[in-house]
């Protein structure tokens, strides 16, 4: 009798083990690579944190179901200090930890440094934020963020076609790759769409006085000014334009996000329109949910790097579900078919080159707050 009881209990225990193992999720490991120390640490930290929010959300909702297996997502992070030398080592670290796919690298240079290795290994690689063309050269590599020229092209189309502006002045930072990259693409696209660049004024990093450039623009027949630059530059430029009595509308690039924190008088940037893949202060249900979860977890406002990483994790999820497999080969094949509803685009799809296809969003400042352009 005693023996029977033991057998039954063992059988019960065995069933429990089996049933839990059928329910218990397998783990899908995302190998994240990016700088969490060094000069670009804020980018890597944002990506890591943004990804963790998405992972917590997905796991909280029951994980990812592929066929009859449920996977929990996990992030295995390695620091590459945004360095080309450290990135391959970081890649090996996450691969040794059993990474199923790679999220990274965060910066373009480091990303390019591992592309040939990930290609050889045939692993799915998605960079949330590497904007250089070389990042997605191989078939296994994809990108979430816009490339710099794409932004310039989108704004050129918007200004010329939607707003009907034909004479445009540009102020850009000649010493900065981001700014001059957008400026080149913008000017080419404006010309292609039949618009005219009436002034193209350069400045350099750390310049604070833009009166000469603005005065030159003032004496042209420009109808609007496009400034692909960072928010600190935009702060000086808009203020000085106001003092010169200029009332031309300003347009900007995603570097303008944050300008409300640096201007002393919000009326100087009232009505400006800039391209932005993500804007934390916009009153949108999905954005608010992400921002509040992020703020609660890290006590900081997510930036576009965090949003790109968030979308990157959801892209992995979509690829797994579409492929019905967690093999990189299948997921890579599934990438062109997926559609992700993310923070930086809704929907986000991927073209043959591996770049994300999503609508460029336009943010405007209305009554001293950021809102999406309707």
């Amino acid at each position, binding site marked *: 009798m005693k023996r029977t009881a033991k057998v039954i209990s063992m059988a019960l225990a065995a069933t429990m083990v089996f049933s839990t193992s059928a329910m218990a999720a397998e783990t899908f490991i995302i190998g994240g690579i990016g700088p969490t120390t060094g000069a670009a640490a804020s980018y890597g930290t944002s990506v890591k944190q943004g990804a963790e929010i998405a992972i917590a959300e997905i796991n909280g909702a029951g994980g990812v179901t592929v066929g009859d297996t449920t996977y929990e997502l996990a992030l295995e992070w390695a620091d590459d200090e945004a360095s080309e030398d450290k990135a391959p080592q970081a890649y090996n670290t996450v691969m040794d930890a059993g990474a199923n796919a790679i999220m990274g690298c965060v910066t373009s240079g480091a990303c390019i440094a591992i592309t040939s290795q990930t290609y050889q290994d045939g692993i799915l690689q998605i960079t949330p934020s590497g904007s250089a063309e070389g990042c997605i050269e191989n078939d296994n590599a994809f990108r979430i963020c816009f490339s710099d020229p794409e932004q310039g092209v989108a704004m050129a189309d918007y200004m010329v076609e939607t707003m009907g502006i034909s004479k445009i002045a540009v102020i850009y930072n000649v010493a900065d790759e981001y700014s001059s990259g957008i400026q080149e693409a913008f000017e080419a696209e404006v010309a292609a769409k039949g618009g005219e660049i009436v002034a193209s004024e350069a400045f350099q990093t750390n310049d604070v006085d833009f009166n000469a450039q603005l005065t030159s623009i003032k004496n042209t027949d420009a109808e609007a000014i496009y400034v692909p630059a960072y928010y600190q530059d935009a702060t000086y430029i808009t203020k000085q334009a106001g003092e010169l*009595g200029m009332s031309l509308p300003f347009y900007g690039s995603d570097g303008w996000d944050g300008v409300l924190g640096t201007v002393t008088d919000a009326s100087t940037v009232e009505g400006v329109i800039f391209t932005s893949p993500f804007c934390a202060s916009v009153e949108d249900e999905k954005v608010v949910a992400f921002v509040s979860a992020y703020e609660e977890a890290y006590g900081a406002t997510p930036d576009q790097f965090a949003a790109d990483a968030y979308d990157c994790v959801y892209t992995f999820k979509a690829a797994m579900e579409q492929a019905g497999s967690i093999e990189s080969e299948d997921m890579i094949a599934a990438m062109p078919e997926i559609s992700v509803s993310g923070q930086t685009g809704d929907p986000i799809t991927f073209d043959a080159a591996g770049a994300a296809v999503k609508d460029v969003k336009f943010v405007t400042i209305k009554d001293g707050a950021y809102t999406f352009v309707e």
Partner: protein
Amino acid sequence: MALITSILEQLLNGLRIGSVYALIALGYTMVYGIAKMINFAHGDIIMVGAYALYVYVSLLKLPPVLAVILTIITCSVIGITIEKVAYKPLRKAQPLAVLITAIGVSYLLQNLSLLIFKATPIPFGSIIKVPSVKLAGLNISGLTIVTLVVTVAVMVGLTLFINRTRMGHAMLAVSEDKGAAELMGINVNRTISVTFAIGSALAAVAGILYISQYETLLPTLGALPGIKAFVAAVLGGIGSIPGAMFGGIILGIIESMSKAYISTQLSDAIVFSVLVVVLLVKPSGILGKLKAEKV
């Protein structure tokens, strides 16, 4: 007509920037005249002035006029203190030692403000609220008017001070010959202190005008105007007070004009080329006097 308006407007831009350079250059030139040293920390006094104004206006909520006066006093006191602590012990040392000390003081001031106010730029709204004026198609901003008026007033006041007061004469005497001045009963130490106080007060005024124009506080904000003003002082003739005024304004106009009509990227190169040419033709600067060394 449009071209003329454009040139006039660029000229005004140049005058405004040049006025600020001139105010700073005066400090370089006066200190050089008296103490025979380049006070490289002078540019950072502008930064101290800007932050001091911010503390008085935004943090302590003092009325603007009082805040301006306190800012000027603060900078003067800091100027005198720097001289007493860092430069006075080195008065008989080699010029190179003094120069290196001045650079050290410059870093000290920058890093102190970095420590206290952190690296994130602080937006600080202008305390000068004067509406802009339209004059024959020209739009002159209120700040430009205030800057020009203040600069002219300061220059007239300084010229009167130096030529009409005993202390002014003492300064001229000390700059001419320190030893002889001392023998004539002039208190050299006090004269040097007053020079540093006035130089720093002028830097404070420049700092106030600068921050009202650009509205963003940075620990390094004084570095670039400081260097430009130093160039202005050398251009005008270091040691010469009219030279510093002239040099500053000329520099501002060259900078503005070359940005507008030649190239924004080359404007600094053009400014420095002008300096090189002037020094080749007239090594003592435009208004500088070349003193014959009696051997």
